[in-house]
């Protein structure tokens, strides 16, 4: 399944960095962060999604504290 979130990223390079961080989380099939549209989308199996989102928020907060993911 695919899920999209609003994300606040400060620069294009940060967006690329955040994208890589999320891609490395186990279970993530694909992830994109668009700097221009400020949108994060994650593709992952449904049963793992909740865990992945939680992990993504945690890892991103650590590596790039200026980035905010809005989990609905």
């Amino acid at each position, binding site marked *: 399944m695919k899920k999209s979130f609003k994300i606040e990223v400060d*620069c*294009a*390079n940060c967006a*690329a960095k955040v*994208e*890589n961080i999320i891609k490395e989380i186990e279970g993530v099939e694909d992830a*994109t962060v*668009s*700097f*221009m*549209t400020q*949108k994060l*989308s994650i593709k992952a199996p449904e049963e793992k999604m909740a865990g992945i989102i939680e992990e993504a928020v945690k890892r991103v907060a*650590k*590596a*790039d*504290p*200026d980035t905010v993911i809005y989990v609905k």
Partner: protein
Amino acid sequence: MTKKQKKMLTRIVCAALLYALALLLPVPEPVRLALFVTAYLIVAWNVLYKAVRNIGNGQVFDENFLMAVASLGAFALGEHSEAVAVMLFYQVGEWFQDYAVNRSRKSVSSLMDLRPDYANIETGDGLEQVDPEEIEEGTVIVVKPGERVPLDGVVISGTSRLDTSALTGESVPRQIKEGDEVISGCINESGLLRVKVTKEFENSTVARILDLVENSAEKKSRSEAFITKFAKYYTPVVVFSALALAILPPLFTGIGQLEVWKQWIYRALTFLVISCPCALVLSVPLSFFGGIGGASRKGILIKGGNYLEALCQVKVLAMDKTGTLTKGTFEVQKTVPEEGFSAEEVLAYAASAENYSDHPIAVSLKEAAGEAKLEAKDVEETAGHGVKASVNGHEVLVGNRKLLEKYGIACKDAENDLGTVVYVAFDGRYAGHILIADTIKEEAKEAVAALKREGIRETVLLSGDNKRTAEAVCRELGVDACEAELLPADKVSALEKRMSGLKETEKLAFVGDGINDAPVLMRSDVGIAMGALGSDAAIEAADIVLMDDKVTKIAEAIRIARKTSRIVYENIWFAIGIKVLVLLLSAFGLTNMWWAVFADVGVAFLCVLNAMRCLNA
């Protein structure tokens, strides 16, 4: 300007004033230093704070950290004015990028400002405004003049003109009357319309378009992948080179001499200033975003940067015939009367005899004849041949040659490749013939020529129609190759055959009206659906959606793609070129920190300005 930007601008201006005072006023050295430090702190405190915080998280290649080291290092070396300048210009650059990004976001979202705020529904006492998302299929809504049509539907009463420019880029308004379909996002110009909703909001045209544009940023181009990968290695390489530059040369040339150390550390610091790749990484998505936004303003929706890029490489363009190059409706092209008859008479006899038929040929005859119909009786239809009828008491035959031969009437062979010929006989005498064909779109010939000018090597017609008709259309329009009598599955294999003959860097695009082309649209490198307003399957299957059915938009889309791509390449090579050049010159001590500031901020500035050009495609 946002609040954040205003605050930053104030800081930049204050720091710049203090900086100018420090440079110009004849004050004693300690005062000057104090002014520099104050200016520095005003403009740099957030960078310093982030540097400390991020380094705590192990982010060594964080740009805040690198800029902090570079500027503080310059302070330590006694280069006070350069230290402040580096940070000042860095912040100016950041501010400008932020401003540019915001502006292009705004200008794209304003042209995508299709979302209706409300829909009017009729209640016992007048109209009530309701959220369009709450309205169900079948509800009757009222659209007042000047309002945006909130949901797709059918007009049940009223006439008006609709401004479709927000969707199609077409400025001529469309006439709308009872029974016509209206599409959400259009603006009702003149009359009051009552519309029966046929699609709920989430399936409406507006919702689909917004969805498509919002998701286009997810499909990233190869250039963007390249540049983010480049950035991933660029910064560490530059930082390690800086480290090596600061340590290795002094070790060998003057390990005990402070001046030598200072000189090499200074060069290393200029490296750090150039190490930030952000402008480079920004300019690529900014360009694609602008290109896609600019195209959507013209009614060309592109589903991602990757398709924009692929469109530049298209060498072969395959096209569907009916609905793409032709209007898909049968029309009387010409009427050729025999001696003793006028064209109007022949048409009127034919239309009157066919008056009770719903066959497409009959419909087009009736349309062409208009009001000039006569009374017809005793209509006899012979399947596969035509009809015999008594019109105003005269025996009229309307049909193919076989019909006239059956009644022993000699007629000329008027067979035509473009369409169907209808023969007419009047009281046992051959009266003339009428050519009925699918009309080629007016702009089709010009569109094919424009494609050639845009560098399309070969145009191919893939048609399910008979060979003669397809070939005639090709000849008429100057299409290079023709494959006819194809079933939908044959189209896919014909496409695959052509694709296998292409080089790696050459792409094939297919244009169709999307009604039964979905498999072909999906299979081609770039699938272009046209006239897609309201056709969900086409919007789903295509990579590029043309909102109206103008063939000329294809060449236009290619032109926009080329321009965007060119700007992206200009930016990539310009930025990398300048950075590498300044790095090399710095290593040999031929530059100073001012050069480094230009290679960082100046390059960013120029790249962003260049990228903004994509918006005005």
